[in-house]
């Protein structure tokens, strides 16, 4: 962004992007308030994030900028807050590209005594509401491709099914982390329908992160990811509430970090202590800038991040 846009067209473009973001935030807040969710704000500067192999935190003075508000929000669930949401900035080092920016806005919401399917029902209604607020209808076009965000347009596809169909192997049977990432971006994602929301359901257990395993199928975790127009938009879990298993997963993530020469992260002991009191819950993180990009009919995040450098 220059100090003052060079011409009236650029000024109108800036105003449009600022207004679209403000309208999206207003629609999100209205959506959750109408459903009895409480908006919360948790710290941005943390003593510890959730250690993940491929998520790098930005260090800041005595701690780190948050890579997600997840651990703090789960402490609120453990403290008796049943339906909460938060809209705010998160930071991930080294992520920069057409659909990545090291600082981005994340929407997270959690429901106590629920799981990833209840969160899926919320997500369907939220997307339709956001599209209606910004585009006037659940059906609109992104870069000239028709996109339907109506709840009945959504398709669900098992991760295993999608990999068997497009990459020729089932990652829940014989897991290979490198092959999973490469095939996901080069074979599976390009094959997903781009004209409607697509949910990839039930990730292999080694990719459970903070999700619980399926009670009847421990090779898979209750985790889903949402794709819109081929863009990864959200990640949802039936939350893991077992502190011992959570600690073991954090330590395993740190061990993998060490193995590839990355520094391990400290564990959030206050979170692990609180987890024992946390009720069963479902939760989700949704990339708001990417949603705004699509609703603003932009090809890259550049158009919706006026302060982006370079």
């Amino acid at each position, binding site marked *: 962004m220059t100090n003052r846009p060079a011409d009236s067209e650029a000024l109108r473009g800036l105003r449009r992007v600022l207004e679209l973001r403000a309208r999206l935030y207003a629609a999100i807040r209205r959506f959750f308030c109408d459903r009895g969710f409480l908006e919360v704000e948790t710290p941005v500067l943390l003593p510890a994030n959730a250690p993940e192999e*491929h998520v790098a935190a930005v260090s800041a003075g005595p701690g780190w900028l948050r890579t997600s508000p997840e651990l703090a929000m789960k402490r609120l669930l453990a403290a008796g807050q049943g339906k909460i949401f938060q809209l705010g900035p998160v930071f991930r080092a080294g992520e920069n590209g057409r659909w990545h920016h090291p600082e981005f806005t994340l929407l997270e919401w959690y429901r106590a005594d629920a799981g990833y399917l209840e969160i899926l029902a919320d997500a369907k209604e939220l997307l339709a509401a956001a599209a209606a607020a910004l585009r006037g209808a659940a059906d609109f076009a992104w870069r000239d491709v028709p996109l339907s965000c109506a709840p009945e347009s959504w398709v669900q596809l098992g991760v295993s099914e999608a990999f068997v169909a497009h990459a020729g192997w089932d990652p829940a049977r014989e897991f290979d982390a490198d092959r999973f990432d490469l095939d996901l971006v*080069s074979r599976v994602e390009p094959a997903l329908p781009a004209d409607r929301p697509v949910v990839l359901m039930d990730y292999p257990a080694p990719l459970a992160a903070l999700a619980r395993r399926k009670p009847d199928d421990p090779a898979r975790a209750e985790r889903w990811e949402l794709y819109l127009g081929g863009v990864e938009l959200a990640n949802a879990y039936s939350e893991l509430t077992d502190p011992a298993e959570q600690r073991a997963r954090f330590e395993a993530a740190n061990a993998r970090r060490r193995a590839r020469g990355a520094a391990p992260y400290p564990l959030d002991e206050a979170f692990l202590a609180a987890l024992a009191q946390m009720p069963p819950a479902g939760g989700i993180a949704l990339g708001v800038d990417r949603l705004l990009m699509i609703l603003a009919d932009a090809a890259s995040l550049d158009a919706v991040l006026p302060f982006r450098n370079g």
Partner: protein
Amino acid sequence: MAYTAADLRKGLKIELEGIPYEVTEFQFVKPGKGQAMYKCRIKNMIAGNTMEKTFRAVDKIDQPNIESRTLHFSYKEGDKYVFMDNKTYEQVELHEEVLGEQCHFLIEDLECEVLFFNGRAMTIELPAFVIKEIKETEPGARGDTATNVLKPAKIDTGYEIGVPIFINQGDFIRIDTRTGKYVERVKQP
């Protein structure tokens, strides 16, 4: 010598399984919980075809031994074309296969950029336009200045080219070496 994936950018030349490629498009990709990768479109510098290739951020990528030299066409001998380095007077032979259609547009002392991969000539870049004499064509209809109706003609190398009706044997024409097509009639060079 090797690159890391962080060096990838448009135009970078890399080597994969013994073949040189040029990166024509690249994009940072990273599944939320997955590793950082670069999704590239790469062009086979010998065969010319393109394909998609995704590199992990931790991958090492070979750097091809590519050298570009300015050479001047000297003469043809059988299916070999002899070029000269005007500084060192070194002679370099290029096989007809490397040149393909381009061999028809060579003229004596024409300056060309030749790309070598591991010491072997791989591709050649001609000047965008060359001037050639028409050796064979039906007599032109005087006064017919239409340029959209073409008739067949041949240049000295036997290359067949469509030219406007008014072009005669012995005329000189400018040819676009990238398309192999007639551009305009010119005075004798």
